[in-house]
């Protein structure tokens, strides 16, 4: 397993050939049937979703989209969803609940989009609603951070029974740049912030946020996407086997407790 500091992992996940969900879908699933729209406003290309056949198990896939080139990135708004993206995710999650399919979320976003339209359509409400509804969704949920887990925009797909991170992925409350500029009033200390913020897969395991780390080939996922996909597939199959056996009431209790116990405080 990697011993690289967070700042070097960030360089790996920003590598231009880093595989995205578009690369993984054909390698992970035998079939994928994409669904569009939130039924309220529109279809957000920063989050895709649909039904997949994973080793014979029908699952609902919800994923944030990093583009592989400028055109794809423009279309996917550089993986920064609007409220309709989160509402599409919720609609598909509810559909999965109805048909008793597990939900698998792939997180890869710098954060929810910050813009006028996003505020007008209730970015805060959309994320909040997902946190609440995913916490009580009566079907298994697994979330995997592929690259960037950016704050509330990532958490909106991160309320789950088990969270896994790719070895070089990071997950944080604020970008290292934002952290440096707000707390140290010096955005140029971005790298230092990255290494101090505790955002790597190992940090999150230790802090009780992540449950598993998925190994990447030496140097990062781009060096062997096929191998990375196999590692994801192995993890996912094992996790699903384990979680799908649980009764719904027990599943919901342990999901509640997973988040309930995170926090560090003392009392007299």
């Amino acid at each position: 397993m990697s011993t690289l500091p967070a700042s070097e992992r960030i360089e790996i996940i920003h590598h231009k050939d880093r595989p995205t969900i578009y690369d993984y879908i054909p390698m992970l699933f035998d079939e994928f049937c994409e669904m569009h729209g939130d039924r309220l406003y529109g279809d957000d290309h920063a989050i895709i979703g649909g039904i997949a056949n994973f080793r014979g198990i029908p699952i609902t896939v919800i994923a944030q989209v990093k583009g592989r080139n400028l055109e794809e990135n423009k279309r996917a708004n550089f993986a920064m969803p609007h409220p309709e993206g989160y509402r599409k995710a919720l609609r598909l999650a509810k559909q999965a609940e109805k048909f008793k399919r597990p939900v698998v979320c792939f997180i890869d976003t710098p954060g929810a989009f910050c813009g006028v339209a996003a505020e007008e359509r209730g970015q805060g409400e959309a994320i909040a609603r997902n946190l609440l509804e995913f916490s009580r969704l009566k079907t298994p949920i697994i979330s995997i951070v592929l690259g960037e887990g950016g704050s509330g925009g990532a958490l909106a797909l991160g309320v789950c029974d088990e969270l896994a991170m790719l070895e070089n992925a990071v997950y944080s409350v604020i970008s290292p740049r934002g952290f440096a500029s707000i707390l140290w009033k010096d955005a140029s200390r971005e790298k230092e912030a990255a290494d101090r913020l505790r955002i790597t897969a190992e940090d999150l395991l230790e802090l009780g946020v992540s449950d598993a780390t998925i190994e990447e080939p030496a140097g990062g996922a781009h060096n062997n996407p096929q191998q990375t996909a196999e590692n994801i597939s192995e993890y996912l199959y094992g996790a699903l086997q384990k979680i799908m056996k649980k009764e719904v009431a027990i599943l919901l209790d342990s999901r509640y407790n997973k988040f309930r116990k995170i926090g560090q405080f003392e009392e007299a």
Partner: protein
Amino acid sequence: MLEDLFKVVKFRAENDTRAEKKNKVNIPRDLLFQCPRCGNAMFMDDFVGAAKVCSNCGYHSRLTAKERLDMTIDKGTFVEYDASMTSKNPIDFEGYEQKIAQLQEKTGLRDAILTGECNIRNKHCVIAVMDSHFMMASMGSVVGEKLARAFERATEKRLPIIVFSASGGARMQEGIVSLMQMAKTSAAVARHSDAGLLYITVLTDPTTGGVTASFASLGDIIIAEPKVLIGFAGRRVIEDTIRQRLPDDFQSAEFLLEHGFVDMIVERKNIRRTLSRLIRLHTKEANR
């Protein structure tokens, strides 16, 4: 034509600066209150007498949690929960303990929220009040834990819960642990809601970031105070993204009402009556 337009804007901007400078001359801070929204100056005594509401534009300025409780609940009925809870330093962020200690000294609070039980015009309920004077009421472990417990106790005792929100968002100094408080509190809201119980949020100045994106937006009924700031992303972040100035009322309570994200805007002087009425309408005997 276009040039003329720019000239006008420039002229106005100059005028504004002058007006601002004129108002700023020789104002002793403890004697006068200057409204951050409209620039109106009021004598501090008048401002406090008016429940800290601007007499000119109606901006409902920030209160301490103690002031809020005094103004809202029946005298002597507050029984505090978890009064001694204080934060640890989950990511060993340098200076965090000292900062907490300083603020505890300065504000008399242990962290950015008070929770407990009280009566509002004889209606018993659980209440949580955030205080922006404590690290801009950012949500870390203590705020998250106290809120989760408040919701759990309200669920257990089958009580309605009222949350006065105010926050700059997640507490960055606690790293990812602060982000997870959003999930923790929202899950606690879900359980209270599943038990068929009433949750009212009152959004006060400012309610932003991770708090807007979690429990504050999840009330059965969402009330906002007039003119307060409510939003997800910071105004400056958005202005930097779109490279233009946003209108003054962007992310105001009125903007949210217009876009369908709050149920009602209620003036401070009417909040007690409104809350007790709403609680009463959620009991089986609506006349009592």
